[in-house]
């Protein structure tokens, strides 16, 4: 009964601040859009500058092979060789192909040479782009070789080749979206739940209204639940909203069990609430609470493998990731959605989440009690 009026009070406050309400709904949608559409490391349409000093039929063919490969956009053609580097420095192009004089003549004798100049500052794009560009040049060379042999009238010599036939499991189009979008769910829950919970408790302390509530017959656990339940409800609403957008708008497949996913998400929700509670008890002002929460969230983004795989981190860093609850949730949600995994494969992660949930909520409750008495 008392609990119900506390919850009602919190919701009334919630309703009164329409911006808070808007944020709780808009924030997840904005984050999803940003991640879903922006998170794309594909290398396509890399701006390339071309210097063709030969201007022969042969070099023209190579240039058009580069231009129509789909990987590049010719940002500048017929550049002079000495202008290539300033062009890259200004960022007009990220790669340059320099075809010297006599390229056409030399390629008939197999002695042709070209130069690829890369802007290495974006090392990832540069490396991949250079790979594509070399591939095109090599293929062009191989064709020239065959042409030359047939022209010479010799018998076609079969030369062995190793081809790679990739079969991509779970995500055949290699859409980064499928990997990133489910993970946003974890991030949204973490940011919204822990931040709002911590701040709502500290705000009462700052305003001095916590003391007022304390002199009423309300017990500490009721007060605590009165704070946690409303935000748990808001977060659950966010959870369903984000899931709906992920499934129906971005059409990420859900191959595993929905109920299992929901259960793990609720478990993760508990850890976020617990985190908010713990932070609220160690902070005096809202600014402190905010800074502390932030100190947790930012490392969580990195260490959870949200953007970059954990296996890729240095060895000393990988053990740290086990201290991040988001890590376990991301493993679960990605595996359930894309691989269709369930409890048999994922139980260690579920167990870790459960331990974190119990530990954080327990510690938060104990600290909360202590601060009140």
């Amino acid at each position, binding site marked *: 009964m008392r609990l119900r009026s506390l919850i009602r009070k919190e919701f009334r406050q919630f309703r009164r601040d329409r911006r808070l309400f808007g944020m709780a709904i808009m924030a997840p949608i904005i984050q999803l859009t940003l991640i879903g559409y922006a998170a794309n490391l594909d290398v396509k349409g890399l701006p390339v500058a071309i210097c063709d000093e030969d201007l022969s039929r042969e070099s023209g063919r190579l240039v058009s092979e580069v231009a129509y490969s789909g990987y590049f956009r010719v940002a500048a053609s017929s550049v002079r060789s000495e202008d290539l580097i300033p062009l890259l420095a200004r960022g007009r192009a990220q790669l340059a192909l320099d075809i010297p004089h006599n390229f056409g003549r030399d390629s008939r004798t197999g002695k042709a040479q070209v130069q690829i100049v890369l802007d290495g500052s974006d090392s990832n794009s540069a490396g991949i782009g250079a790979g594509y560009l070399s591939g095109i040049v090599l293929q062009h060379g191989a064709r020239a070789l065959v042409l030359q042999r047939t022209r010479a009238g010799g018998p076609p010599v079969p030369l062995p080749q190793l081809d790679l036939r990739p079969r991509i499991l779970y995500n055949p189009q290699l859409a980064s979206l499928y990997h990133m979008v489910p993970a946003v769910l974890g991030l949204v829950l973490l940011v919204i739940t822990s931040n709002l919970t911590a701040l709502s408790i500290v705000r009462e302390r700052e305003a001095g209204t916590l003391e007022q509530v304390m002199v009423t017959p309300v017990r500490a656990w009721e007060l605590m639940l009165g704070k946690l339940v409303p935000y748990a409800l808001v977060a659950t609403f966010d959870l369903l909203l984000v899931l709906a957008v992920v499934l129906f708008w971005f059409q990420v497949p859900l191959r595993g069990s929905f109920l299992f996913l929901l259960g793990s998400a609720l478990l993760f929700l508990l850890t976020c609430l617990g985190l908010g509670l713990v932070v609220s008890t160690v902070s005096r002002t809202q600014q402190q609470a*905010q800074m502390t929460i932030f100190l947790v969230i930012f490392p969580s983004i*990195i260490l959870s493998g949200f953007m970059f*795989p954990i296996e890729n981190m240095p060895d000393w860093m990988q053990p740290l990731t086990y201290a991040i609850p988001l890590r376990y949730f991301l493993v679960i949600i990605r595996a359930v959605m894309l691989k269709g995994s369930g409890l048999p494969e994922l139980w260690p992660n579920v167990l870790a989440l459960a331990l974190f949930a119990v530990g954080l909520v327990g510690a938060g409750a104990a600290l909360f009690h202590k601060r009140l008495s």
Partner: protein
Amino acid sequence: MNLRRLRAIAVKEWIHIRRDPRSLVVALVLPLVLLLLNGYGLNFDLTDLPFALCDYDQSSTSRLLQESLVRSELFRLVGSVRSPAEAEHLIQDGDCLFALIIPPHLQADLAHGKSVAIQMLLDGSDANTASIARQYVTGALTSSSQRLVAEAGKRLGLPARATLPAITMERKILFNPGLDSRHFTVPGLIVVILVILGALLTSGAVVRERERGTFETLAASPLLASEILLGKLIPYLVLGFADVIIAVCTGALFFHVTIAGSLALFLACAFVFLLCALGFGLLISTIARTQQVAMTMAIVATLLPAINLSGFVFPVRNMPLFLKLIAWVIPPTHFLIIARSIYLKGVGLGVIWPQLVVLIVLAAVILRACLTRFRKQL
């Protein structure tokens, strides 16, 4: 505007900051911690990709192939499997990223000059890692292929020239010859950290006074709106600038990423950018009614856009048009270009002036908006 009154406000705000040592420490330590954590954690250079091998051929050639993969630092052999189904199981459990299936008669076919297809089972769930892995394996097979072609050519008695690639390539890498992704991420991280910190520092500045009821006192004083805002901004500018210097030193000391261009130019641009970042926090502070909203908004509105939209990790050119438009009006996108250009390419004002002009305009617009909102509240 009166300088004496401005100073009074700045001193008052500074006292607020000093009274809360924990927030002060966090504000100064945060760039260090974030840069270290991210500098090591954000790494595009994949190594030790775990893979499984299913070798149906069991010949000397297939073993050679396996060795050439294992010897490179890029791959790590998790184990041999007997069937593709078994390999798929390993991938499902997350024990390996990909599996290679070498067909029977590999050696025999190659000896007859036939091409052989090697199947790769690849876990596509993390698309970025998967496409990089595919790229690596393709590269490894191409070089093995070239060696095999040369051997076959020798056996067939062809002149060496006939089996060499017809075109040779020379690669020249500018600005970051080792293609070390840290040189790419560290300047970017400095930008991201400044955006977030800027918003965090100032997002509470105005709304806090409102919540505590001291706002009315300020409003009743003879202070002008511009004096209050600027006075509040100055201590945070000092703090933010200290953060810039801490971040630059951390990058140089721990990651050996140093500024190739002019340090003074970088600091000047960073100052303009700080105005944008802190101004944005102030703007949030004048819009929100409670600190709770202001601070959550500060995280939501800066953290992800700064990371995802600015080109810090994901190239702007890949984005759909509506996101490109947003990317081009937010300050971090422009400062990121400046930071990377000065850090890596060592260019000067002659190259980066367009971005700097945009930053100055954005700073003016943001501060102007703050003032308008603030006047309305007064």
